[in-house]
């Protein structure tokens, strides 16, 4: 019902390209003919065509890998042949086997599936034209946002539809567990990487060389997810740098003239995994990927998942990112095939670039009106003293929530015969699903919200004081939101600009003043950040009460703690139950030095929390806020 509300204003701001629905044609013409259509994509101009097997040979014979093989064989006392064998095995396990026939199979079946699941799949054709140009000129890296397993199938499907070069995709090893499907994914271009291989030099060398060779030769666009894993909260995850580092390396070392990075924003009205995510965040373990699981999940085919918007962003040239930022001559003095740890300069460059790219993804997301409604609902829900009444209003307004919950076998609003904890968790599932809608729009409000909270807690109107507060909050939440490192001043100015523009603030040299009509906006914005503030506060509180615990114990223990306080009504926001928020809070506290991980064993202590109290008192505006208010709530 809600998505019938005309949403064009939110969907397509004028600066963006128009969307075309690719399912429309599928509904009107033969899927089989589509799957068997003539496919002749534009390729990289410098391409030397090669087969999958030749690609593997190139990797195994590369100087880079050769060096590491010699090193490893010396360290382990093995012959180089043995190590080469190991490398070949790793490569075998990893490598994709892109086949047009499999792609055609997927094109056919996915057409059927997509038509059932989705009302429309909208893509910006201008973006695809830009992509085609980019593929012709330079090696291309595709960087889609990651909200669902659908993402990479969807990407390949779209590229096939538009006769563009099919990508090779870095996928997690967990897919390989799905026997037939794993192999099919492999044949549609996926290559599999282990989730963690920290110390394994050989694995790293094979992996990075494999990616680089495919990229440099223009074999195919390389696709991976900057966020590393699916975001369970629909809020962008802080980017992982490993793969980005690898794909930038050929440019930094002069092996290619340039590389185009193409951020792709995939916005789902509903992800297939929606409720799974919420449960996962609440501590129900995620089901292992398996083929039978996939079959069980086929009931989702009877659901309506609305539409998908896929926006191919402006290609970003690595060369222009690096311009006057990176001194490439730092690679002049060591042979380029010897693996070296990237310098601080490079790391911070890659990090900043990653943030810029995730921001670019966020900016081109398409929001549905109910995403905004979710804000209101959540805040309303939290503001009510008695949770019951809040939920009743809730259900009235959002019929769709019930359908959603039913799908997961939860009886959302029946209160009888369940314990208060169960009831709370059931409620929380709904809330977190709702949160994941709201979160999609969070990036739009985050900077103004930080400013609003800073103003709210500041003791005076002095601009400097408010800036200090802003900076503190921004720093605090930099694990939670995509806030480009070192851009505090720009963010502050942006937030000021936006609030002044909407008439909420007046700002002069010294002071920041709230206008008459600004109160409402500011109240809204302050409450945008409230659940997060409260979440972080409660994590602090929890850590103060605990002595020492291992990292593994942390989530269950903090969850228990929070449930206790929610039930006694001392905490307002049910969404603080989200383990994502709890982990981010912990990471932030570690980063800020308030909590310390002790090396040698898995565990941490918060011995230094008191010091952090002291440091906080250096922020006059904020000292009263985090702790006094925690106390007040508890």
């Amino acid at each position: 019902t809600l998505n019938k509300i005309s949403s064009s204003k939110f969907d397509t701001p004028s600066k963006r390209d128009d969307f075309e629905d690719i399912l429309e044609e599928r509904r009107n013409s033969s899927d089989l003919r589509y799957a068997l259509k003539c496919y002749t994509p534009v390729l990289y101009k410098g391409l030397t065509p090669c087969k999958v097997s030749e690609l593997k040979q190139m990797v195994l014979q590369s100087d880079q890998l050769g060096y590491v093989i010699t090193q490893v064989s010396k360290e382990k006392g093995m012959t180089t042949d043995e190590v080469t064998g190991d490398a070949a095995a790793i490569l075998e396990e990893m490598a994709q086997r892109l086949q047009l026939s499999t792609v055609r199979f997927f094109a056919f079946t996915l057409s059927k599936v997509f038509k059932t699941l989705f009302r429309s799949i909208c893509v910006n054709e201008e973006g695809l034209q830009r992509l085609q140009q980019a593929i012709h000129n330079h090696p291309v890296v595709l960087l889609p946002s990651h909200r669902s397993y659908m993402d990479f199938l969807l990407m390949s499907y779209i590229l096939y539809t538009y006769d563009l070069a099919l990508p090779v995709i870095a996928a997690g090893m967990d897919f390989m567990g799905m026997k037939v499907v794993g192999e099919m994914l492999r044949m549609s271009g996926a290559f599999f990487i282990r989730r963690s291989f920290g110390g394994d030099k050989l694995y790293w060398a094979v992996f990075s060389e494999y990616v680089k060779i495919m990229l440099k030769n223009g074999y195919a666009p390389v696709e991976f997810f900057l966020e590393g894993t699916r975001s369970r909260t629909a809020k962008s995850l802080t980017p992982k740098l490993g793969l980005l580092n690898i794909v930038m390396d050929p440019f930094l070392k002069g092996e290619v003239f340039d590389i185009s990075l193409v951020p792709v924003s995939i916005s789902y009205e509903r992800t297939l995994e929606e409720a799974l995510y919420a449960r996962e965040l609440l501590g129900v373990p995620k089901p292992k990927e398996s083929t039978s699981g996939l079959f069980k999940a086929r009931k989702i085919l009877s659901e309506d998942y609305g539409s998908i918007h896929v926006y191919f962003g402006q290609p970003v040239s690595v060369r222009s990112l690096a311009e006057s930022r990176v001194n490439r001559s730092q690679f002049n003095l060591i042979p380029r095939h010897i693996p070296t740890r990237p310098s601080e300069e490079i790391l911070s460059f890659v990090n900043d670039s990653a943030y810029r790219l995730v921001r670019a993804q966020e900016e081109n997301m398409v929001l549905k009106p109910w995403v905004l409604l979710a804000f209101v609902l959540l805040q309303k829900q939290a503001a009510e003293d008695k949770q019951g009444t809040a939920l009743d209003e809730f259900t009235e307004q959002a019929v769709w929530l019930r359908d959603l919950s039913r799908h997961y076998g939860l009886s959302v609003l029946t209160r009888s015969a369940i314990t208060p904890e169960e009831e709370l968790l059931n409620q929380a599932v709904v809330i977190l699903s709702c949160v994941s809608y709201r979160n999609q729009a969070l990036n739009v409000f985050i900077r103004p919200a930080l400013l609003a909270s800073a103003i709210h807690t500041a003791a005076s109107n002095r601009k400097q004081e408010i800036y200090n507060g802003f900076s503190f909050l921004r720093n605090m939440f930099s694990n939670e939101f995509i806030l480009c490192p070192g851009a505090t001043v720009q963010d502050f100015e942006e937030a000021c600009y936006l609030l002044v523009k909407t008439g909420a603030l007046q700002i002069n040299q010294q002071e920041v003043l709230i206008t008459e009509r600004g109160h409402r906006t500011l109240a809204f914005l302050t409450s945008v950040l409230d659940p997060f503030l409260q979440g972080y506060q409660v994590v602090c509180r929890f850590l103060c009460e605990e002595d020492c615990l291992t990292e593994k114990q942390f989530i269950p223990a903090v969850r228990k703690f929070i449930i206790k306080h929610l039930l006694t009504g001392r905490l307002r926001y049910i969404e603080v139950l989200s383990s994502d928020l709890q982990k981010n809070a912990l990471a932030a506290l570690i980063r800020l030095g308030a909590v310390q991980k002790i090396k040698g064993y898995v565990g941490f202590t918060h011995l230094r929390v008191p010091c952090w109290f002291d440091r906080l008192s250096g922020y006059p505006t904020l000292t009263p806020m985090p702790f006094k208010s925690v106390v007040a709530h508890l």
Partner: protein
Amino acid sequence: MCHTFPALTSDRSSRICSLLYKHGSSMASNSSGSDSSDRQRIAQQRLSVIAGHLQRPVEGNSGILAAECKAQGDKLDVSSERRTVPRRRQEIMKWNGWGYSDSKFLYNKKGQAEFTGKRYRLSGMIIPGLREWMESTFGANLQHKTPAAPILNSSAVQPPTLNEAFLKELKSTGIPFSHDAEDRVFRSHGHCLHEIFALREGKIGRVPDLVVWPNCHNDVVKIVELACKHNVCLMPYGGGTSVSSALECPPEETRSIVSLDTSQMNRILWIDEKNLTAHVEAGIVGQDLERLLNESGYCTGHEPDSMEFSSLGGWVATRASGMKKNIYGNIEDLVVHIKMVTPQGVIEKSCQGPRMSTGPDVHHFIMGSEGTLGVVTEVTMKIRPMPEYQKYGSVVFPNFEMGVACLREVARQRCAPASIRLMDNEQFKFGHALKPQVSSIFTSFLDGLKKFYITKFKGFDPNRLCVATLLFEGDREKVLQHEKQVYDIAAKFGGLAAGEDNGQRGYMLTFVIAYLRDLGMDYYVIGESFETSVPWDRVLDICRNVKARIVRECKDKGVQFPPLSTCRVTQTYDAGACVYFYFAFNYRGLSDPVHVYEQVEHAAREEILANGGSLSHHHGVGKLRKEWMRETISSVGMGMLRSVKDYVDPNNIFGNRNLL
């Protein structure tokens, strides 16, 4: 260069060659069986080969050039009296372009390109393909001309700032000098694009206030003493072929600037056949040095592309490199002894030992000092008997990557010929466009056949193939053996032998290419070449990236036509290679083409440095590349050079402000 025909024997191809050229390697190959002890004969051969490149007018200019050094009448001058460079350069050379006044490219009334004069092989010939190449490569058009100012307007030259006391004492020494406007303008520039462009527009900036022509070492000593005494700025001037803004007068210089022209110090003072060395005055230009040594049956083998005009002193001052360095070495390998006059006195070593362990080699303070420390006056150089036999050659590769791999292998096996150069596809096409009109149907038929063989039968893509040119020197036996070895290596990389004449024309073009820029400038096309040296594993990457950077920068800077962006590998070393980039574009529609040109060249140099290339292989730093010196040699390195300068020349008498 496109006509390639491996099936032909060298005899037949040299016959074709002799149809095309007045002098050719055919002479060398025909006479190769003769008695090698006949030195005079070989000298004749050798002369004819060199004359092939450099043929100078028979009448000569010896009348004007009587070289005399009153102070050194007793010194033995073993060489004859004919010299190329007169005191008044304007008598034979262009004032606003490259080389001899009588030699230039132009479009005749029929719209065909021709090269005038009599000095070069190409002289007097029609080059039918050039016009189309220029039109298609640059979008140039014969209707759109940008003619140069025809004559030097002396009134545009600012009057000289003369130091009267210096002048008075200088007069008393009897050393010739002049403050004539033409003389001064001639010595105010090298051959950078911006320098020539300004001259063509009749724009003249700061020029030297006085030109002096010392005749010998002692004259230089006197001049330097007077300059120190009267605080006059001295700028040594050799052949004037600098491409690093080294000869530009620093605009901030307020003292009187005296250009010290070494061109009249041009004698070979002695030849030592026991040690195979020659003691030569540093002002001698390359072609004279070779010609005079050849008369005695020797050569230095140092042949930079500028050897017609560049001087020995200039080579030393810039660390020059010659095309045949694989046999003879670069200037630092050739020099045995240097005498230089500095404000602190004369620096020279006490003996001529072939190698010394006496601390850092002071020669290395001198070589590459670019005129900032003093004037090189006399040099003892290694000489070699002239080679018995010379043979050109060429190889066509399917693509540039294969070509580079072949050169790398040749370097690995240390069997590089006297010269080996690899041109990329664009240069290959350019060379093709410069083929003179074929003189018979038979030749054009052969050309067609060769082209067919390479592209159709062998399957080479005409838009990817590239060519290496070769020059072998030495005993006939060894040359042939060597040749086989190199061709065998080339074959492993898909290379096909493509005949002697292709190779020879490649080297000939080296000498005329500088003239070609003047033609381009008549039709809105500006360009230049620049070089670097780079480790082997970086060669392909640097070539690709720098060429692409040039194209991108041109586009970004609003150049309306696609530029010519091309490169060649011109020297091989154990650990790397020297790479030359050529870059030119049509500047119609740009308001400040020189500025655009400079921005693009600057970006290209940044790209070179980012890709592991050096700041310069042999052109030097001058003022053009100064800004990158610190990052190139580190702050400590700069301090070392600075402290040498501070000691040797505390008052900055040699104030050209190059290098540091």
